């Protein structure tokens, strides 16, 4: 009877050890919340802005205050299903666009914001800060 009790105690100890080791190992790996959707939105937005201004298109549209055309270009550059709202600030932080540059307001489970610094290839070298809010 005493031996059987000892075996049961060993079984329980072994089972507890297995779970404890699993928990210990799991605790060593980094645990973070899943922000993948948000990061992908940001990355896609940044990539779109970098590509748009590769040949200076974004800068020319901002410099010409062509907000409607800028909205159309962004609709093409950003993936379908992503909503956006763009605000352009001058070098001193004052907002420039007097109309909303958006494809219908920010909608989606996740809303993210990023900023892109813009230099225009014209004689006085205007600098702008572009804030792009994305929903998806």
């Amino acid at each position, binding site marked *: 009877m005493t031996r*059987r009790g000892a*075996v*049961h105690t*060993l*079984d*329980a100890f*072994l*089972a*507890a050890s*297995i*779970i404890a*080791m*699993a*928990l210990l*190992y*799991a605790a060593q*790996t*980094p*645990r*973070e919340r*899943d*922000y*993948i959707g948000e*990061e*992908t939105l*940001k*990355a896609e937005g*940044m*990539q779109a*802005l*970098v590509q748009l*201004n*590769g040949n*200076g298109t974004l*800068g020319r549209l901002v410099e010409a205050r062509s907000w409607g055309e800028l909205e159309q270009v962004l609709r093409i550059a950003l993936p379908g299903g992503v909503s956006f709202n763009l605000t352009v600030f001058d*070098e001193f932080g004052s907002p420039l666009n007097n109309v909303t540059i958006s494809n219908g307001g920010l909608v989606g489970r996740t809303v993210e914001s990023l*900023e*892109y*610094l*813009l*230099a*225009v*290839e*014209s*004689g*006085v*070298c205007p*600098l702008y*800060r572009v804030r792009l809010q994305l929903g998806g």
Partner: protein
Amino acid sequence: MLTKRRKGQVLVVAALAIALTILTTQAYVYELNNMKISSEHGLLSDYILGIKQESRHVVTASLVNVSHGGAASNFEANLERWEVFVAGGYSLGRCDLNATLASSTTYSDGIRLDWGANGSGVSSACADFALNLGGRGVEVDWGFTVNMTSRVEVSGSYDDLGDDSKQVSVSVNLENEGASALAGTIVLEYLKSGSWEDPKNLGSYAKLDSGNGTYRYTFIDTIPGTFVRVRVRVNDLRGVFVETETSLPSG
């Protein structure tokens, strides 16, 4: 007896199943974290790429300004504005951008305007950048050079038609950073009796745009002398101005 022994085995098997479930879940979470890190690196890479790209635009804008008669000091002033702008534009930590103007025998304060009389003209701006970015576990030290150069090459010859009448052929080639580039505007002129003339006013004038940065011109006029002096003034598509002169020999 047998049932009681099996109870212990069931307990161990159940513990193994629970441990396996915990480890599988953790492995899944770990994979997701890896994807997140990869995505963050992509975002950071694009941000840095954006800084380099816009630094090129600042250098180009300065070259546009200086090549149209602006002060060479505008280049340094634009770079200083850009440095301050970048430092205030990074919300995730510290971002320092330091620009140094190229200084050599060919560059003065980062600018080279060599509009020679030998058929080759160069407008160039050059600066070295050092980007230091830190914060949120990220440390980036990166240096890059931006050299924006517009170069125009002019060559050609003339056929003597007698009595100082000459059929002139001119070839203009434009390059941006060593690669063929299209021109925004080209003004070709030739020297006749001490004044610069526009060959467009001649009925014999013809222009051929090859579409690859090479432009060919022909015209006929009475031009005294043993050579034909021509001048070409070009604005490339970026707005950078460059000009050159040369003497065309008899072909």
